[in-house]
């Protein structure tokens, strides 16, 4: 059983983080990003061609994380590969001991730097969750049996910040019914929407069935916020929020304060099982953020989680 699964099922507060995309530089490049995170996070996401840009592959990076003794979460997106290749990636990672799998639809190819490429979307994300769950239960989509199947801990992503807002909990439920045990939420700048999502997720029992991790994004300044607003699909940033950071005497510090406020807000909501952090290469800010939130390093975190109960086994 992965550390992530063990902790979430026990009701221990969990922190995960996204590894910045890796290109050149070999394992040392991975190590440089991982070292500042290591004391603080329980597991690290190996991303799958983020924002539709080609990088070192999700499976290769997940295996690199294992070699560096950090627990990986294998992100798998539906954009680039058909169901045969997606199953092969999950099984390939599992062969090396990658148990956590996070299933996403994926940004469209038009969001990336090779918009002329063919988009695949042979599966959608709820289907991919179901397929990954099936692999863990010992069968491929075809029905072919897997002898000694891998133990998998399957999760997904949901975006509580975009339309249709009332439908987002329903869609998260669909993923939970397909086997998602954790949900890392999309980055967002409308705290009231996150609040409404968590209240409904808790009321409907979703938060007790699948561990929900709001995402906190540590940006270096206002330019990053503007970029998110204009370029990243599904993320809108209110003009006032950008302006507040932009007109501050120290935009870098103002961007940090924004992240800290967002995290404090998230921790006050019901049903929050942990936090997911996206650092945009501000890896050093993780220690500061968690210290400011009074969240101890992962070795010192014990159940029960003050914010959310232990997961119910489905």
């Amino acid at each position, binding site marked *: 059983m992965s550390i992530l699964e063990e902790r979430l099922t026990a009701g221990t507060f969990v922190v995960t983080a996204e590894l910045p995309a890796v290109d050149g530089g070999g394992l040392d490049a991975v190590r440089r990003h991982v070292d500042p995170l290591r004391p603080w996070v329980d597991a690290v996401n190996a991303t799958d061609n983020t924002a539709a840009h080609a990088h070192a592959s999700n499976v290769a990076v997940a295996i690199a994380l294992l070699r560096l003794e950090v627990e990986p979460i294998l992100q798998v997106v539906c954009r680039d590969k058909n169901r045969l290749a997606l199953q092969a990636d999950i099984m390939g990672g599992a062969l090396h001991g990658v148990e956590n799998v996070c299933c996403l639809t994926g940004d*469209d190819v038009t969001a990336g730097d090779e918009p002329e490429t063919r988009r695949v979307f042979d599966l959608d994300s709820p*289907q991919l969750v179901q*397929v990954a769950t099936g692999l863990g239960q010992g069968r491929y*989509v075809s029905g072919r049996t897997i002898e000694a199947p891998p133990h998998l801990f399957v999760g997904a992503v949901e975006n509580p910040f975009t339309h249709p807002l009332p439908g987002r909990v329903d869609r998260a439920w669909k993923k939970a*019914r397909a086997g998602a045990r954790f949900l890392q939420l999309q980055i967002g700048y409308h705290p009231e929407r996150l609040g409404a999502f968590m209240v409904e997720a808790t009321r409907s029992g979703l938060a007790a069935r699948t561990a929900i991790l709001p995402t906190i994004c540590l940006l270096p300044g206002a330019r990053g916020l503007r970029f998110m607003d204009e370029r990243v699909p599904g993320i809108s940033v209110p003009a006032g929020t950008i302006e507040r950071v932009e007109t501050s005497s120290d935009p870098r510090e103002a961007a940090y304060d924004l992240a800290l406020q967002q995290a404090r807000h998230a921790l006050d909501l019901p049903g929050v099982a942990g936090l997911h952090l996206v650092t945009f290469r501000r890896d050093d800010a993780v220690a500061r953020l968690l210290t400011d939130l009074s969240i101890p390093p992962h070795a010192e975190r014990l159940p029960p989680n003050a914010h959310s109960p232990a997961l119910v086994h489905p």
Partner: protein
Amino acid sequence: MALLETVEHAVKGPIWDCRMCGQCVLHSTGMTCPMTCPKTLRNGPCGGVREDGNCEVVPTMRCVWLKAYDRKERLPLLPSWRRHFDDLRPPVDNRLKGTSSWRNLVTGRDRETPDGWPDAAPHVAEV
């Protein structure tokens, strides 16, 4: 047999922009064809919907799944159709592309799934 396909496309093309996937799910998606979503998502909207409700891929087009969501609430659909909205629809069988979904409905071919896909188990009781 191509006649049936031609008739089906002549009827469903102009109304729903039918793509002839051969496994029609319009009744459970608020009478909105999910194959017109640029990502061909059959299980709800992606996370990329724009703040104005338009599509991530085609900024001038309203998100297909937002339309589906609105129509599911608004149209006088059979209650059972409405309840199937949140069912997990199986992956597309690409072999059926171009065939008549009417024939596939009658023969049951459109409900065949691979052995590894769990049997359709709606999460809500049937009417």
